C-alpha cells in the first residue's frame, strides 16, 4: 500500500490531495449542510472542513482539538456531495481525517470512550451485539424500562444514559439471523439468485424488516442466499475513523459474499449498502482480496434499486374503505440518496402501490441526525437536526412515512414520539411487503 506522509497526516488513510484540490471553494454546498445551518460557522461547513483538512495536510495547522471536534461534528451525510458542482468526494476526506485523528488518538477522552464502547465493544462482534441485545430485550420487555423512565430513576443514575435511552432501538423478539436458513427458495419460478446481508442493527432491532425484505424478494422470483455467521459490514467503524476494525469486518463480509453464482447482493440498510459499494477501495495492499472486494461491490444493490430495475410490481391494492386514501411520504436516508444516488427508485416504488396518496416530504433528503452513532456522540446537535425533520413531517401530516435505513427509523421514531405525532413509520421493504399481501 502507498504510505504517504503529508505533513500533518501519516500512514495509509490520508485525505487525498487531488480531492482536496478539486474543491474550488465556491460555497454551493453550504446551504445543504445541516451542521453549517446549525452554527453559521464556516468551519462547520463542508468548504471550511476541506480547508482545515488542507491546512493540516500542508502543516499550516496542527491536528488540534477543534479540528478533530469539527471532523466529528460532521454527520457524514454527504448532502454536500450532492450539491457540489465540482464532484468533490467530501465523504472520503472527512473519513480519512477521522481515521487520522483516531490513529493518532487526538480525540477527547469522552468521545474516545463512547466510540470504543459502541464500535470496539458493541458492534465489533456480532455475538457480543446479540448478547447485549438480549439483555436489552429483557430490560425493555420486563417493564423495567418503563418503570425506570417513569420514576426518573434512570435520569438520577445517569443523565447521559437517560437521554440515550429512547434512542436505543427496540429489540426484536427474535434475531433474524437466528431463524433464517442459508437458502430460501423463491415462490414460483426462479429469476434471480441474490445474496442477503442480515446486518447488525437490522438483525437485532429490525428482524421483521429483514423478514419482510426476504418475503418481497421471494415473491419477486428470487432465491435468497443468507450466508451464515455474518458480522457487521464495518461501515460504522469506518465512518468514525477506526479503519483497522472496519477493514477486518469488511474482509469478513467480502469472504462471505464473494461466492459464485450470486446475481446481486441486495441491501436493505442504506449505510451498509453504501459501504459495500466502496469495498473496492479498501484493500489496496491486498490485491487478491481487493479483486474479490471489487466483485462484491459491483454486485451490490439497494433493495429499491434492484426491484425498480427488475420491474417489481405490487400485486394488490389495500382496501381503503370509503375514507380518503391514506397519505404516504418518503424520507431519503443520506447514504441512499447522497452516497448511492438512489433517489427516484424508492419513490417510484412507493408511488406504484395503489390506494395511497403520495405526498413529497419537504426537505426529504435533509439528514434526520441519526448518522450512525452520531446521535450518541453528538447528542445535542442530533436532536436539533431531528426537530427540523419532525417539523417537516408535521407540515404534511402523513399517515405513513417510508424510509430505507434502520438508523433513520430509530431516530425518526424517537422524534415522532416526542412530538406525539401519530404516523406509521415503515421500512420500504415492509411497505412493499404489505402491498404484496393477499
Amino acid at each position, binding site marked *: 500500500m502507498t504510505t504517504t506522509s503529508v505533513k500533518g497526516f501519516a500512514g495509509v488513510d490520508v485525505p487525498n490531495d487531488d480531492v482536496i*484540490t478539486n474543491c474550488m*471553494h465556491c460555497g*454551493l454546498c453550504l*446551504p445543504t449542510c445541516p451542521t453549517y445551518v446549525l452554527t453559521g460557522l464556516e*468551519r462547520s*461547513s463542508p468548504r471550511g472542513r476541506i480547508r482545515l483538512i488542507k491546512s493540516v495536510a500542508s502543516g499550516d*495547522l496542527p491536528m488540534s482539538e477543534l479540528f478533530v471536534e469539527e471532523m466529528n461534528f460532521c454527520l457524514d451525510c454527504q448532502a454536500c456531495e450532492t450539491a457540489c*458542482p465540482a464532484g468533490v468526494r467530501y465523504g472520503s476526506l472527512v473519513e480519512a481525517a477521522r481515521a487520522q485523528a483516531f490513529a493518532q488518538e487526538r480525540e477527547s477522552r469522552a468521545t474516545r470512550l463512547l466510540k470504543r464502547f459502541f464500535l470496539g465493544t458493541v458492534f465489533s462482534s456480532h455475538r457480543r451485539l446479540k448478547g447485549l441485545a438480549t439483555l436489552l430485550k429483557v430490560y425493555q420487555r420486563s417493564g423495567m424500562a418503563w418503570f425506570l423512565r417513569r420514576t426518573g430513576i434512570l435520569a438520577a443514575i445517569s443523565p447521559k444514559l437517560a437521554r440515550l435511552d429512547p434512542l436505543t432501538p427496540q429489540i426484536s423478539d427474535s434475531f433474524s439471523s437466528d431463524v433464517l436458513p442459508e437458502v430460501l427458495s423463491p415462490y414460483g419460478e426462479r429469476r434471480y439468485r441474490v445474496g442477503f446481508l442480515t446486518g447488525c442493527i437490522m438483525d437485532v432491532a429490525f428482524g421483521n424488516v429483514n423478514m419482510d425484505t426476504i418475503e418481497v424478494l421471494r415473491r419477486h422470483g428470487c432465491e435468497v442466499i443468507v450466508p451464515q455467521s455474518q458480522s457487521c459490514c464495518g461501515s460504522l467503524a469506518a465512518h468514525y475513523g477506526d479503519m483497522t476494525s472496519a477493514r477486518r469486518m469488511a474482509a469478513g463480509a467480502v469472504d462471505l459474499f464473494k461466492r459464485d453464482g450470486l446475481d446481486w447482493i441486495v441491501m436493505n440498510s442504506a449505510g451498509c449498502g453504501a459501504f459495500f459499494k466502496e469495498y473496492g477501495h479498501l484493500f489496496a495492499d491486498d490485491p487478491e482480496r481487493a479483486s474479490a472486494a471489487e466483485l462484491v461491490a459491483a454486485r451490490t444493490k439497494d433493495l429499491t434499486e434492484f426491484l425498480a430495475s427488475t420491474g417489481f410490481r405490487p400485486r394488490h391494492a389495500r382496501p381503503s374503505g370509503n375514507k380518503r386514501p391514506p397519505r404516504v411520504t418518503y424520507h431519503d436516508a443520506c447514504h441512499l440518496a447522497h452516497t448511492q444516488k438512489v433517489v427516484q427508485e424508492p419513490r417510484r416504488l412507493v408511488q406504484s402501490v395503489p390506494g395511497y396518496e403520495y405526498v413529497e416530504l419537504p426537505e426529504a433528503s435533509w439528514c434526520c441526525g441519526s448518522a450512525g452513532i452520531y446521535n450518541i456522540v453528538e447528542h445535542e446537535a442530533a436532536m436539533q437536526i431531528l426537530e427540523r425533520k419532525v417539523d417537516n413531517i408535521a407540515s404534511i401530516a402523513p399517515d405513513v412515512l417510508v424510509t430505507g435505513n434502520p438508523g433513520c427509523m430509530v431516530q425518526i421514531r424517537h422524534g415522532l414520539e416526542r412530538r406525539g405525532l401519530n404516523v406509521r413509520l415503515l421500512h420500504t421493504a415492509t411497505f412493499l411487503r404489505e402491498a404484496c399481501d393477499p
Partner: protein
Amino acid sequence: MFTPSALKKLQTILGPADVLTSQEDRISYSYDGTPMLSRLPEAVLRPRTADQIAAIVQLANEEEFAIVPRGSGSGLSGGSVPVENCVVMLTNHWTRILEIDERNLTAWVEPGVITAQFHSAVEGRGLFYPPDPGSAAVCTLGGNVAENAGGLRGLKYGVTKNYVLGLEVVLPTGEIMTVGGKSVKDVAGYNLRDVLVGSEGTLGIFTKILLRLIPKPESSSTMLVMYDRLTDAAETVSSIIAARISPAALEFLDNTTIRCVEEFAHLGLPTNIEALLLIEVDGRGSVVEEDASMIEKICRDHGAREVRRARDDGEAARLRSARKIAFSALARVKPTTILEDVTVPRSEVALMLDRIQEISRKYGLMWGNFGHAGDGNLHPTCLTDERDHAEVHKAEKAFDEVFSAAVKLGGTITGEHGTGLAKRAFLDRLTDPPALQMMRSLKDVMDPRRVLNPGKIFELKPRCEGPMPRRREQIEKFLAQGAFT
C-alpha cells in the same frame, strides 16, 4: 495595527462569543469563491446591530485596522478575501426579511438574507425579484448589492442595481446613513445610493436594504436551439434583439461546454454542434406564445439545426438544466476552474468568441465558453490545476489578452463579478485615467483612514497630501503615519 487592546475592545462591543480568533476560524474565513487567493484575517466578527457595526468602524479608525465585510463568500473577484491587518465582518446574524410591502411592491431586508430564500418568500405572494445569480442558493442580498450581481434574467429585467431603492449603511467613518426610500422617483441631490451599489464593501457596510419587487410573470416558454456554426447563433441573438423582443433569458454554450454537459448529465445533446442557445420568454400568455413562435422562426431562418421547445414545466426545467449545469460540468473536468466575466456590446459577441478561441489555442489551454449572450456577458472558463504553476502562469497571460480584446471591442473586464483583488491590475490599465482618478478620490473622501476593504478595486497608492516632505524628520513622520502601507 491590530493589537491585543483592539481585540479586547472588540470583545467588549460584541461579547466574546461573536469574536472568533481561533486559528481554525481564521483559516475558514481566509478565502472566498475566487481561485488561488487567500490570506488569514486577525479575527472574525459577527455583529448583531448597526450600532455595534458603527462602534467597530470607529474603533478601526482609532486603532488602525481594516474591516472586510463578508456575505457568504461566494464572490469571484476576491471581494471578501482578507487583506493585511484586517478583521472579517460577517452578516450571517442578519437574516430577517423585515417587511414585504404589497402596496408599494417593496421589501426591506437585512443584508445576510440568502438570495434564493428571498426569491421563494416573495414568489409565495405572487411577486417577483428578478436578479438570479447562479449562486442564488448560497449568496446574500448584501453581497449581491455590493457586487451589483447579475444573472440569467439580465437582458429583460436588468441587474441588482435596478432593484435597489434604498440603503441603510454604516459609513467608513462610523456614521449611520440612510439613502433612497420607497418613492419610485427621487432626484434630490446626488444619487449616493447608486454609488454604493457595486462598491464591493469599500465605501460602506449595508445594514438594511430596500428592494423593488415586480408582479410575477403569468407564464413562460422555454426552448433550446442547436447550431452547426457559432456565427449563426450569434446572429440569431442580434436578430432577436433587432426584432424588438426581450427574452427573459438568452443564454449561450459553446462546443467544449456542450460536450462536458453531455458527458456529465446525458441530456441527449448532440456533441458535434458548435453552439447552443437557451431562450426563455415570459409575460402574459398570448404574448408569450407569439414571441416564442417568432423567435423560433428567427432561429430557423439563421440555420438552426434543431429547436426543442418545452411542452410543459418539467420539460422546461430539463432544457434549462443544460445551461444551469454548464459551470458544474466544466468544473468537474480539472481541479481548478477559472471563471471569467468579460462583457462586450451584444453586436460583438461573435467576434469576441473568435478572439477567445484564438487566444486559448495560442496558449494551448483547455477552455470552455458560456454566458449571457443577450447581455454580451461571457464566461470564458479556463480549466487547469493550480498545482501546475507553469500552466497557471500561461492562463494568466491568456486572460490578460482576453481582457484587452474585450476592451478594444468596446467592452469591459467584468460584467457582474466585480473587480476586487482579482482584476484591479486590469482596471488600472484599462480604465480611462480621469475616471480612475475620480474613483480613487471618492474612496479617499469617504474613507480617509482606509478602513473598509482597502486595496480592493484599486491598489492603494501612497497618500501625498500637501508639499513634498524634504527633511529627514518630515519623511519619518510621514512614514510613521503609515504613508506607504
